[in-house]
């Protein structure tokens, strides 16, 4: 795919609202086409499996420390906050239930995705953006390689695949964080905590919690690659693309989280 010129203005300039709206619509259209192209390449040869593994290592294994830390502290603070409310009703023993449903359905996928977006959308945008401004992408095309197949599709596949597992790890570590608070500060029985946390989960909770990272992983990778491949204007342009990628990916994750949650609640008959 020939990467089209970006609609991102290079400098402060006065533009009419109509022009601005058209630019935004055009950018969305370009992004949709870009994403569709990235997905279509999964079914086209050549496939860069080694590049996908490399990206899976960078994105998945590389993000593990921040995901573990985020998950643990989120689970812990969730237990702490929940205990304060539950104590008023004399139901502090239910803290495990609250932590597990919150982590699995919502906070696990969303916070993991936001962390991975912060780390990897920016990384993809800056790496690909640098390759664009130093003509490495042009060189790749001149050498007979499709950059969409070689650079974008492996990143998208790897992010979707790895975010799924990172979310599972984050959920488990989050529950452990909750256990830490329940045991150390609330003096609850660990077995009771786990039993509560486990038994409250139903298929719908787990489905919702694992469907989200698939979508969010796709958003993180396609946004990062899109801004990177459309970077213009030297190092300043790369910096701008990097910032915009993180902002756009984070906002899209939160916006789509609301939409997907509402949709899945309706489909799965969850209240």
């Amino acid at each position, binding site marked *: 795919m*020939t990467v089209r010129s970006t609609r991102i203005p290079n400098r402060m300039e006065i533009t009419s609202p109509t022009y601005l709206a058209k630019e935004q619509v055009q950018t969305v259209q370009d992004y949709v086409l870009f994403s569709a192209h990235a997905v279509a390449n999964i079914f086209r040869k*050549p496939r860069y499996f080694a590049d996908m593994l490399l990206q899976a290592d960078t994105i998945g294994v590389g993000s593990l420390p921040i995901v573990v830390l985020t998950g643990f502290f989120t689970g812990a603070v969730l237990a702490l906050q929940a205990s304060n409310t539950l104590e008023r009703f004399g139901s502090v023993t239910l803290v495990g239930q609250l932590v597990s449903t919150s982590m699995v359905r919502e906070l696990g996928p969303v916070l993991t995705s936001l962390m991975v977006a912060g780390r990897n959308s920016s990384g993809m945008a800056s790496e690909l953006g640098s390759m664009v401004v130093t*003509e*490495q992408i042009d*060189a790749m*095309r*001149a050498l*007979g*390689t499709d950059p969409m197949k070689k650079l974008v599709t492996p990143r998208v596949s790897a992010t979707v695949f790895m975010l799924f597992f990172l979310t599972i790890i984050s959920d488990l570590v989050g529950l452990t964080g909750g256990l830490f608070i329940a045991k150390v500060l609330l003096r609850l029985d660990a077995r009771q905590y786990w039993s509560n946390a486990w038994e409250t989960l139903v298929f719908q909770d787990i489905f919702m919690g694992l469907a989200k990272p698939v979508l969010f992983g796709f958003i993180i990778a396609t946004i990062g690659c899109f801004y990177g491949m459309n970077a213009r204007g030297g190092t300043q342009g790369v910096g701008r693309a990097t910032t915009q990628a993180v902002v756009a990916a984070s906002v899209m994750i939160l916006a789509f989280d609301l939409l997907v949650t509402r949709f899945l609640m309706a489909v799965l008959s969850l209240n």
Partner: protein
Amino acid sequence: MSAPTLPLDSAAVTTGENSSPAIVFEDVALAFGENEVLRGVSFRLNRGETKALFGVAGSGKSLLLKLAIGLLRPDSGRIIVLGEDVTQMREEDLFALRAKVGMVFQESALFDSLTVRENVAYRLMEEHGIYDDEIDRRVREVLRFVELEHTLDLNPAELSGGMRRRVAIARALITRPELLLYDSPTGGLDPVTSNTIIELIVKQRDVYKTSALMVTHRLQDAFTMATHQFDKQSNRMVPLPAGQRCEVPMSFLILRDGKVIFDGDLRELAFSKDEYIREYIS
């Protein structure tokens, strides 16, 4: 200096039997917004010929190379490269044509995450089915040609500007292309390194008869190429005898305001009466 030999298959050497031009530009126009960069550019590059492309900064010289290899598409006009109309080809189809074309970018455009070996071997590794031993042999051959065999395991960041440029030339040569596109191959380099690179280009022209389009700002480089030939016996570039200058397949093309204002050989350039050209070459 003497340039090392690059062993090539006989089939890879352009014989001149194919009489169709290597490149034909027909009334090509290209604009970015309201900025018309190219306005009806037409020229042809014959097989085995090297054409030096001049023009002030921003005149669209580099764009011509990118148009020729299909990295950009013109707004109008036709571009025929090695007998194929690149303006009508899909990106997927262009990849096959690009296998026959080598390009050296202005800033080398080496992949900074790969070593010199991996950069030079990139095309061979992408082709698959070529054994590592064969890849290694060919990488060493072509790096020997540019006198950089010792840099095999270095990263591009560890090389000087001139070395990077020569690695880029090696990367372009490894598949033995029929056509070479050089974008300012000597820009920003010292005279000694520039001369080394010019000698490599002259050797490619005279020994392997490869067609080439070369963007340059350095008139002296193009004049050297027009007044020298590669001597296979001594394995170095030597000046042509006084009476035989302009006998080498070397021509010049000058762009001004998006149009071709000169397309001819050294003699025609030297005797041009156009004031702008006279000022340009003075």
